[in-house]
């Protein structure tokens, strides 16, 4: 069983979570081109290394952030969005 530690609920079975993909800055709607939006919406960076991702603990509907090494699939830490820089 894979275990992920939710900052609010503690260690839980990975089945209780849903991934929402990497955290990234949304384009500025005032200046972004169609190509910028298409890239933002449909193209993943998928570079090796550590990414910060949105995750949701489904039973409590709590969204949080996780640092994950996408090469080793190891989660380095999880934290509340309020702690993000």
């Amino acid at each position: 069983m894979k275990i992920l530690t939710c900052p609010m609920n503690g260690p839980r079975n990975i089945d209780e979570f849903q991934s929402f993909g990497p955290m990234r800055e949304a384009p500025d709607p005032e200046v972004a081109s169609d190509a910028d939006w298409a890239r933002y919406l449909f193209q993943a960076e998928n570079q090796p290394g550590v990414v910060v991702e949105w995750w949701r603990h489904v039973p409590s509907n709590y969204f949080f952030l996780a640092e994950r090494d996408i090469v080793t699939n190891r989660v380095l830490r999880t934290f509340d969005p309020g702690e993000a820089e």
Partner: protein
Amino acid sequence: MIQQVHPRNPGGAAEGLALPKGPLDLADLTAAPRFGLKGPGSTDWLIGHGAALPEVNRLADWQGMRLLRLGREDLLLLAEGAGEALDRTLESWRAHPGPRGWSAWREEGWAWFRLSGPAQDEAMARLCAVDLRPTIFPGDRIAQTRICGVEAVVLRGGRGFDILFDITLTAHLIGRVAAATHDLCQREVEP
């Protein structure tokens, strides 16, 4: 007058399903009074009315009710045997101009069951992946997790485990608990 139809009532999706009895006892408390309060203003309104709010995933007693904190601004009042206190609370809440949060409709959207009996801890260990032993999970804790594959809120009351979950999954949960009961009883009679 609106008549609520619960899943085990005539015409409901779980009509006719027997609740397990014996080493595992499953009681249906879905008709018992409760109220979910959610959104900005919820905690301030409760604090303004004298409630000492517990931390998230903890519960506290308040005016004869159990006050569960499911999130920063997500609260649930369980008023089993305290319907009058809940009525007074709701009257005051409805009269408040706001902000006061909003109703999460927990009295309609969630079923409320209680699992009790001598085999309750062993059964919960089979039905839920979270460690719910009393030393790890005392009476003031709440677990928001999955039981029988169903997302649920679980707490350990003095009379068993209270389980609140999506009311549309009532028949599924009863069936899974009945299967667990059957397994436990079978094992007890084996040599």
